[in-house]
């Protein structure tokens, strides 16, 4: 007992020294729940409409909200909606596909007005919940229904377009004449990047009479290099190492967190890389020096927009498609050590305009 008392005394002293000068801000701010409190800074730029009665919620797939990839980016859309429009929020992370239905229902029970679900795996569960709860609006990232219910909006992204630009850029920056790409799993939302990348390289070869090779993806057979795992960084690293051994000096990993291994390999071997989904110089800043650019998929913008529409009662089930034109997808600013000259930079801008104008179609 003596020991316990002594320990309590020490703990008390530590707490005292740490907190002695603290002061309570004010009764109101301390007692207000933080999740629903609109921050005052957010409103300083352009005071936007506030919806304190609207509750926006999100359900992740089994990657979780800390996946440095699509769950995390979509979640950023929700937190941004809370900052900008003062909506209330709630979220649930899924651990396994069998939980999807329960998790969405839990959000419905919590009185959510808009529920964003992340990923095609939640397609069935979202549709089932939307059928039962017609007064709740649903937005699903990376999925579009053939016959959408009136309260379900698909949020899709034509990432082939910016990947095309990335492919052109990679081919132009390659000195060995070989560039490499690999995916997480062979599914459309991954291979759309690789298809666009491949076409961009071919475009460069046509324009410049070059012969830059793409390893890791064959658009005819739709087969290529896959880690078959979105989590395992080591797998991404060894896949990229192998490509570098084969002469690739620009790596384009489309594998979520596993792709970080690709960036590591690029850094170790002093070659360049292009990141996907988010601006790598922000989300994976330690690899910023190897990045030429990043193919950005603005899921946060799309999710926030869907929440705003739902709050404003302008929600429709029309599928949203992020394109270069509406800036739902795009290239991030070039990396600090990318060394892109003005000629190449203006060529990329020109290609971008051609895609927007429909002169070049990327499939």
């Amino acid at each position, binding site marked *: 007992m003596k020991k316990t008392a002594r320990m309590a005394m020490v703990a008390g002293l530590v707490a005292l020294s740490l*907190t002695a000068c603290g002061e309570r801000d004010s009764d109101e701010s301390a007692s207000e729940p933080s999740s629903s409190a609109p921050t005052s800074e957010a409103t300083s730029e352009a005071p936007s409409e506030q919806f304190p009665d609207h509750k926006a919620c999100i359900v992740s797939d089994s990657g979780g909200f800390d996946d440095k990839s699509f769950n995390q980016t979509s979640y950023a859309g929700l937190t941004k909606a809370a900052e900008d429009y003062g909506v209330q929020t709630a979220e649930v992370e899924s*651990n396994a*596909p*069998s939980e999807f239905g329960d998790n969405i229902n839990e*959000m419905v029970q919590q009185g959510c007005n808009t529920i964003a679900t992340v990923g095609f*795996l939640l397609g069935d569960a979202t549709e089932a919940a939307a059928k039962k709860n017609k007064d709740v609006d649903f937005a699903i990232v990376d999925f579009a229904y053939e016959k959408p219910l009136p309260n379900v909006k698909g949020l899709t992204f034509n990432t082939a377009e910016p990947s095309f630009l990335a492919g052109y850029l990679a081919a132009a920056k390659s000195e060995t004449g070989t560039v490499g790409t690999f995916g997480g799993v062979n599914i459309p939302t991954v291979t759309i990047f690789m298809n666009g990348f491949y076409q961009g390289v071919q475009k460069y070869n046509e324009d410049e009479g070059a012969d830059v090779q793409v390893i890791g993806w064959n658009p005819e057979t739709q087969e290529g290099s896959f880690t078959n795992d979105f989590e395992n960084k080591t797998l991404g690293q060894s896949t990229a190492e192998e490509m570098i051994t084969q002469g690739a000096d620009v790596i384009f990993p489309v594998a979520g967190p596993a792709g970080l291994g690709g960036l590591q390999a690029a850094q170790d071997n002093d070659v360049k890389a292009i990141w996907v989904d988010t601006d790598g110089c922000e989300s994976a800043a330690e690899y910023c020096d190897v990045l030429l650019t990043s193919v950005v998929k603005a899921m946060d913008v799309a999710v926030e927009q869907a929440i705003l529409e739902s709050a404003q009662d302008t929600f429709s089930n029309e599928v949203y498609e992020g394109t270069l034109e509406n800036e739902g997808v795009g290239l991030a600013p070039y990396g600090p050590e990318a060394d892109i000259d003005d000629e190449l930079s203006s060529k990329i801008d020109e290609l971008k305009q051609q895609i927007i104008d429909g002169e070049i179609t990327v499939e």
Partner: protein
Amino acid sequence: MSETPKDPLGPGTPDNGDQGQGTTTQGAVPAGKNDAARNGAGRDRDLTSWLPTVVDSIAAVVLALLVGALLIMFSTPRVVESLSYFFSYPWDFFKFSGEAVWDGYRALISGSIGSGTAWTRTLERAAPLICAGLGVSLAFRAGMFNIGAQGQILLGALVGGFIGFHYDLPPGIHLLAALLGALVAGAAWGAIAGILKARTGAHEVITTIMLNYVGRFTMLYFLGKEALQRPDSDNLLSPPVDDSAAFPTIAGVHVGVLLAVVAALFVWWLLERSTLGFEMRAVGANPDAARTAGMSVARVYVSAMALAGMLAGLAATMTVLGRQDSLTDQVAGTVGFDAITVALLGRTTPLGTVLAGLLFGALSAGGLSMQGAAGVPPELTQVLQALIVLFVAAPALVRGIFRLRGQGRKADVMATGW
């Protein structure tokens, strides 16, 4: 139940017995638990001997909840903020922490057992854990550490699911075919490890872990085939099984949950009443002695792993046929690995496994409400589960903290001074 006087499975050392416990006339549940406790404690040298007593398990749960409460407190922004002016307004800190912990654990309780929906969730999440956990327990009792439940579940799901959505059979027969398919596939996958051990002596821990990888990539390979994908889609996602192959529901809960209970009864009967079960326990206790006694150790290894795989296949049907989940490479979730925890927490007895499975199902279902209603970070329920296992695995630590008496497993009083 099991510790009959003529049981030759191992000499119970006198100082190691669970003395002072009622032997025969307690209520059903505690009697079973005590029995299980003695069962483990009595056999000094077999694999179960390091498993904790029931009291340790309960103490571990309580301790995990206490640590969890601290974590809830310090993951609540309001509580952390109130620390900065703790000495001006100490009451704020206690009030906010109290509210945070109360809200969190109230959500945990109401989300797991507070309503009909909650019970459905708990039972449906517990069912696969129980089935797979029984498989791990069974193999454990036969002296094998079955890490391969995950792969066995995947194979069961693959075959059961494929029969469920690909073929068009009349109701009833369709369900039966899919169920059998899943059981047979799981059993076959489990038997591989058993045969390897029996024939070549390859250690089952290594082979089952490797077979998990093989199972996962087998699943991925087949999901890449047109026949398993939805029409007009290249996503690695199968259609759900037809309604004719799905378990019917009674009062909102699919009948697969009943099958889990039947499976537990079957495993109990097998281990405690059948000849094969007796041989399994004998081999688990001492394979050399069992061989000398004329038992076929190889046959026991193969049949134990096949049965373990079959139970894992049954676990697969809980999601694929019960909840009509589509096949993906994640269809098994982490059930196969959680099952190991469930089995060990349940002291590798059927009853214990059922109780541990229910606890984990309830934690999972309640954890959902903690996230949704109380805003507790989702990692926390997993931390809670991990803490329980950690404390169960470190009985000396728990006893030290609760000042439980006696290293000789006599402790059943946790009243003194803490």
